């Protein structure tokens, strides 16, 4: 490793640190906002309420992405991917667009709402997201040390 390479490595690490601070900052902001929203006098305006309402109004894209992102972040692959990363991303986002365009909710409501386990439709779309994520959208192996 020559001096130039070493310098780039250091500046890269500094940049990654900055991105990490942005992420932590955003997370703390949302946390503080949600605590405020939960304790203020208005009901039903917390982040949880909003995501729940959106999901119940047919945004299956949220549950789908919950699953796909979970597969992406937490289930690394040890073998070679059978599609490359870019193609995988295009497939994952393409399916999301199909879910949005074809308004899957309207096809499921009548079938599911009368059922006792009403939530199962959300569980199904979460699982579907996980499966698509596992197939097309996993990251490479986790580094052994950092």
């Amino acid at each position, binding site marked *: 490793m020559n001096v130039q390479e070493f310098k780039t490595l250091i500046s890269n690490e500094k940049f990654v640190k900055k991105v990490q601070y942005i992420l932590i900052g955003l997370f703390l902001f949302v946390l503080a*906002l949600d605590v405020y929203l939960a304790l203020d006098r208005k009901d039903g*305006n917390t982040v949880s309420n909003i995501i729940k309402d959106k999901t119940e109004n047919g945004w299956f894209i949220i549950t789908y992405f*919950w699953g796909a992102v979970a597969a992406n972040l937490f289930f690394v692959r040890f073998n070679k991917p059978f599609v490359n990363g870019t193609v995988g991303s295009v497939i994952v986002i393409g399916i999301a667009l199909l879910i949005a365009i074809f308004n899957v909710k309207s096809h499921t409501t009548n079938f599911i709402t009368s059922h006792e386990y009403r939530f199962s439709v959300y569980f199904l779309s979460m699982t579907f997201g996980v499966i698509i994520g596992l197939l097309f959208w996993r990251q490479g192996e986790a580094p052994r040390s950092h």
Partner: protein
Amino acid sequence: MLDIKTVEYIVFGIIGFLILFNVYLNFNKIKNDTVNVILKNWAYSKYFFITFIWGVLGGHFFLGTRTPIFGSNWWLPVVLVIILVAILVFIGKRLAKGFSIKRRYQLLLLIAGLLYGHFFWSQRHIPQVEFPWTITTTIP
């Protein structure tokens, strides 16, 4: 006080920002700096509580039982999840520097989180259920 529409704009604004930011990070010159890579590295090292939180939020946002196990104490599951995460962070902090968690434990953490969010921190609880331990006795 913020109304529901404003919070909607804030929440989806943040998600939109993260997506655009991630696209930028993906195509800039620096490798391994995307949000996905950073979160994966965290979740596989000592901050594996992220996996648990992801599961809890999934159960909390999208699933949820109708029977409130804790009665009307809506704050109890929140306090409990803070304690659980604190314990996970504490365990993570004590682990050796190069520690990397196994993939099957990620599955365990995710499912444990989902079950917690589903059974204990549900948003779909029916308001009033009388349990033997929640019945309030009125003095005649």
